[in-house]
């Protein structure tokens, strides 16, 4: 982080204030893009911990966001649970499923883990498509609303603040964990799992905890997403977005929290701005950026930025 400790928390306060003020000055359409951007950034931050820091190339992150979103809506509207119990139950379900998936997948490495989680994500989409009235089929669930909290109806810019809270919570927890013993264990498992095991790190447990924790964070983000437009449908939580998330983290700089944020913000904003203008050319350019990043800048944009700053300092 650099600088004196006082500056360090001042930056947090400033960033939080900026994120919280923005919803109240944006136009409705911009506000919609803004809160969806925050959703993507939150997912990118937790996915970066899973892929970039722990080295687990899972493609189930959006699936867990979908499990969180769908479960909370189903519990609210079809099981008549209150908001609090529904949220807790949905997070618990995501945690149990993530534990089962990661427990089963501890033996798989690299691309085999990607395939197992890809198959899991595919199965989820099939279940959502064929779930009848429970999941609303291919059209998904619509026409529900967030219940009032303590008599207050939270919507518009105020609801965007909920997403700000989830994003900052995700980031704060992961930054904290990253600096702990567990965070170093995760990096050790990524870089050389055999050496990590020799140093006394329980490799399987580290992988399971990291997978379950980040997947529950994805579920929390998915829950907030479910009440953006009061609709959830299968394509949002499908494979294509899981790959997009992977690419965001790579382009931004995998293993770096700032990199994940930069990658998600730049790629999501460029999609929102360019796609209506240039259509598929945007996606083509996107693929070229990903290939170029891996070939020429393996540490991503944040690595390029660090190099640039170091060079400027050396010149001074």
């Amino acid at each position: 982080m650099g600088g004196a400790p006082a500056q360090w928390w001042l930056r947090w306060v400033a960033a939080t204030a900026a994120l919280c003020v923005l919803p109240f000055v944006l136009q409705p359409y911009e506000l919609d893009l803004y809160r969806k951007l925050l959703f993507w950034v939150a997912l990118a931050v937790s996915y970066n911990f899973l892929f970039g820091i722990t080295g687990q190339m899972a493609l189930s992150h959006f699936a867990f966001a979908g499990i969180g979103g769908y479960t909370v809506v189903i519990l609210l509207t079809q099981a008549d649970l209150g908001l609090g119990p529904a949220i807790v139950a949905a997070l618990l379900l995501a945690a149990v499923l993530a534990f089962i998936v990661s427990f089963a997948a501890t033996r798989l490495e690299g691309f085999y883990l990607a395939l197992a989680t890809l198959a899991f994500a595919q199965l989820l989409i099939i279940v959502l498509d064929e779930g009848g009235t429970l999941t609303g089929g291919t059209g998904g669930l619509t026409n529900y609303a967030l219940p009032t909290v303590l008599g207050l109806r939270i919507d518009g810019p105020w609801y965007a603040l909920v997403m700000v809270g989830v994003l900052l919570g995700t980031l704060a927890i992961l930054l904290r964990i990253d600096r702990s013993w567990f965070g170093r264990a995760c990096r050790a498992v990524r870089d050389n799992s055999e050496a990590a095991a020799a140093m006394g790190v329980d490799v399987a447990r580290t992988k399971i905890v990291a997978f379950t924790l980040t997947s529950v964070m994805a579920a929390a983000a998915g829950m907030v997403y479910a009440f953006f437009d009061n609709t959830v449908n299968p394509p949002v939580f499908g494979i294509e977005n899981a790959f997009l998330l992977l690419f965001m983290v790579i382009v931004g700089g995998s293993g770096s929290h700032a990199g994940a944020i930069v990658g998600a913000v730049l790629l999501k904003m460029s999609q929102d701005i360019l796609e209506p203008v240039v259509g598929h050319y945007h996606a083509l350019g996107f693929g070229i950026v990903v290939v170029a990043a891996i070939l020429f800048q393996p540490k991503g944009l944040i690595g390029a930025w660090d190099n640039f700053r170091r060079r400027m300092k050396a010149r001074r």
Partner: protein
Amino acid sequence: MTDLLELLLSASASGCIYGLMALAYLLILRPTGIVNFAVGEWAMIGAFATVILSMKLGLPSVLAIPGAALVLAVLGWLTEWSVVRPLVVRGAGHLAPILVLLGMLVIYHQAMLLYFGGDQEPLDGPFGFRRVELGPLAGTPQSFFIIVATVAVFGAVWLFFERTVWGKSFEAVAINRRAAALMGINLRLVTALAFAGGAAVAGLAGLLDAPRGSVEVNMALPLAIQGFSALVIGGVHRVEGAILGGIILAFAEDLTRRYAPIPSGLALGVTPTLLIVFLLVRPTGLLRAKAAG
């Protein structure tokens, strides 16, 4: 009974397509350790190349099909040369080539989408649509053609690996890269040939599959996923595993769709379920590596 036989014939044809896709993965995976998800796109490009060569340029199938395979071999070689080799030379991590090929997948997909649009193009099989009966077996001529062509491809690959020095050098690289290099095997050439061969086989799978449905950009991802599932089922160590996995996967899919009392949408779950079960229960696949290697 005739119904079942007809189903088995078309399932065998599907199994051959999956087997060819699995072989495309395997040819690249064995000597290089790289899982190339872009083979699905190569299959789609192979189908489009055949559309151009046979329908637009009017070449006969006997020229169009090898021509398309050649185009794909060049594309595979170019891909290896342009994005994979720089990473290998630099000594980047083992995940980097896999990720860069995922990026190439996006480039192929979007470039084809921009050029051909999302429409479906028809592609006629070389033997038309007249129903063929061979003893108790009956089906489309394309089904028979797929099976014959797949047997030929697998036979050629088997001969290459078992009977030629080149094939042996592939296997040597697969077993121990460093030792193979020290024995004077040209790793670069083996890698380049692996990509060219894998791309050609993927292209063949795509152009053989297309006449049963249509040629469209979105045919790529299902082929990529089914090919890999077949590879995991059969095992990544043996060429025979690819076709065995393909046949098992296709039979499981088609028999479930036809006889299981579940909605057809849920039958789509057969492939991911089988993939998960095999990854967890038998990650080495059905066929193990030869000898104690």
